[in-house]
């Protein structure tokens, strides 16, 4: 009759076999799980926006294989900054948002814009400029123009030249001038009264009577990258017709009383600009007629302004007209001036002759000019909700290993108990 110990042997063998089978099964399951690349899932509920650091961290997780998704509302708001090419050193911030936007900087609120697009031009931004719309903040650093060159004014002795030069000088531009008093007499200012790309950022022409030599030098100047502003009578210079983007299609006299009615540009005599070339850019209109038109010519820019006798704006306008006239001329010249940094070799060390010299600000790493676009770019579009299914179950139940271990231990204990090895 088999002994008790001998009767245990089949059970021991069964236990060992089952334990090994269970271990093998666990091994197979684990292998398959690794092969499947089981990942973590991360879902972020965003309310308003994510900081760039957080967004980049999540993008890194996604790149490492985790499943990252997000949901919530992030307002569509974009901000950009561009240096205003004027001696003021201001920055123009452009903002587009689909709801009302609060504009501010590190010191607090500056202004606000209603839904849509708008710009804020200021030199008073401290730190980052922030546009907050419905809780989402787009931020960008201020930019200031590099060193600007001088302006050459070519005109006739008269009020228009006088006040144009005055406006530009008051705005901080360094001005050279050549003013015709008669066929043989000119009144000059500055060291360089011929257009010179190394010294001048732009040339302002106010005199329709240009000699051939002067016209040729201006054309060369523009093609080499300089800016040209044609205004008043000079808006249709025969000698420079090849550079212009528009022709004068009509001349209107100023409207009486327009200064008092707060419409100074309507009070000025006006050369309507029409017959635009295909590359013309209309910068400003007056009653749906082009008033200021720009065009790129080779490396330079040409701006035609149809407003004549702008000096009347300064003298006869209502309160604020002196500043408005100054801003108008500074903007015309700034827009014509080249975008690239032109090192003004003629800039002297004297403090009087220093224009804006601060370099362009390198955008900060924490700037976030388009939060929604960056978020979608990094993590994909928003999910409606967190994934509905439960997280993937662990294919390796913990009890599997425990039971296998128990069986093997029991088998070993039984063998040892009966004295077997």
């Amino acid at each position: 009759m088999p002994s008790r110990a001998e009767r245990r042997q089949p059970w021991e063998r069964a236990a060992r076999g089952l334990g090994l089978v269970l271990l093998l099964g666990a091994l197979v399951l684990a292998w398959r799980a690794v092969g499947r690349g089981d990942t973590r899932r991360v879902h972020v509920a965003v309310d308003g926006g994510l900081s760039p650091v957080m967004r980049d961290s999540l993008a890194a997780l996604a790149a490492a294989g985790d499943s990252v998704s997000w949901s919530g509302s992030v307002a569509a708001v974009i901000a950009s900054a561009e240096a205003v090419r004027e001696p003021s050193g201001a920055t123009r911030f452009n903002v587009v948002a689909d709801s009302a936007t609060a504009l501010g900087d590190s010191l607090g609120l500056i202004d606000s814009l209603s839904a849509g697009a708008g710009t804020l031009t200021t030199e008073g931004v401290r730190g980052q400029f922030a546009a907050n719309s419905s809780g989402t903040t787009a931020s960008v650093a201020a930019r200031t123009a590099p060193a600007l060159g001088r302006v050459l004014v070519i005109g006739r002795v008269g009020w228009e030249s006088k006040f144009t030069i005055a406006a530009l000088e008051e705005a901080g531009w360094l001005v050279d001038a050549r003013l015709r008093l008669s066929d043989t007499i000119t009144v000059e200012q500055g060291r360089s009264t011929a257009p010179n790309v190394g010294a001048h950022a732009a040339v302002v022409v106010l005199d329709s009577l240009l000699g051939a030599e002067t016209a040729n030098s201006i054309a060369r100047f523009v093609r080499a990258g300089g800016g040209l502003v044609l205004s008043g009578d000079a808006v249709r210079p025969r000698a420079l017709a090849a550079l212009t983007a528009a022709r004068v299609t009509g001349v209107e006299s100023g409207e009486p009383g327009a200064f008092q009615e707060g419409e100074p540009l309507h009070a000025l005599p006006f050369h309507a600009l029409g017959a635009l070339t295909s590359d013309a850019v209309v910068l400003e209109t007056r009653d749906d007629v082009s008033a200021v038109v720009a065009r790129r010519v080779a490396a330079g820019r040409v701006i035609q302004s149809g407003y004549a006798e702008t000096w009347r704006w300064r003298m006869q306008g209502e309160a604020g007209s002196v500043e408005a006239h100054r801003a108008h001329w500074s903007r015309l010249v700034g827009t014509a001036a080249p975008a690239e940094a032109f090192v003004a070799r003629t800039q002297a060390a004297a403090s009087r002759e220093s224009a804006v010299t601060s370099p362009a600000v390198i955008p900060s790493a924490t700037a976030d000019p388009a939060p929604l676009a960056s978020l979608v770019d990094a993590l994909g579009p928003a999910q409606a909700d967190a994934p509905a299914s439960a997280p993937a179950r662990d294919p390796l139940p913990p009890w599997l290993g425990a039971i296998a271990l128990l069986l093997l231990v029991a088998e070993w204990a039984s063998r040892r108990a009966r004295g077997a090895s």
Partner: protein
Amino acid sequence: MPDFVFATAQYDSGDWDSAPLVAANIIDGLARYTTLDVAPTGVVVPLGSKDLFKYPLVWLTGHLPVRFTEVERTTLREYCKRGGLLFVDDHNHDVDGEFHRTAWEEIERAVGPLKDLPSDDPLYRAFFTFEDGPPTTSHELNGWGDNLVHKHLQCVKFGERVVVLYSSKDYSSEWSYHPDNKRFLSVDNSKFGVNLVVYALTR
């Protein structure tokens, strides 16, 4: 529209029109020596009127006391701030006279204190060169009025910009003749007027 129109200031208190031929004389001088597009006659503009701002150079003269109204004062101050230039000439040539005393007081009250304009100022080289500063007038040399030859003009400046020029030299009398009579003069005595206009048009 001409590039330059000679404007005479009309003010309430005095004989602003005491030198009606000055306009023609200066216009004549500008035409003789430059190709400036200048209006053939002058205009009269009330000092307290908004029309003042159409003429960034204005001539003011007289014999009688000058007393600006508040409107004239305010308009003049704004005119100077915006870039206008007022030239005031004492037609009495008398620093003890009432025009000088009152005009000086009104200018200082409306605009600012008057100081001597140095003889090397760019005004004296704006077109013709006057080495010794403002040219003398025959009235000065004849002992008219205060019996003095005034060495300097006076000015009020906003920053570096001259906004009021004051003369005790009686250019109003000096230039009060029909310009056709210049042919009888060996030296054109109205050249300084050209300097004034060119200076005003360029500075």
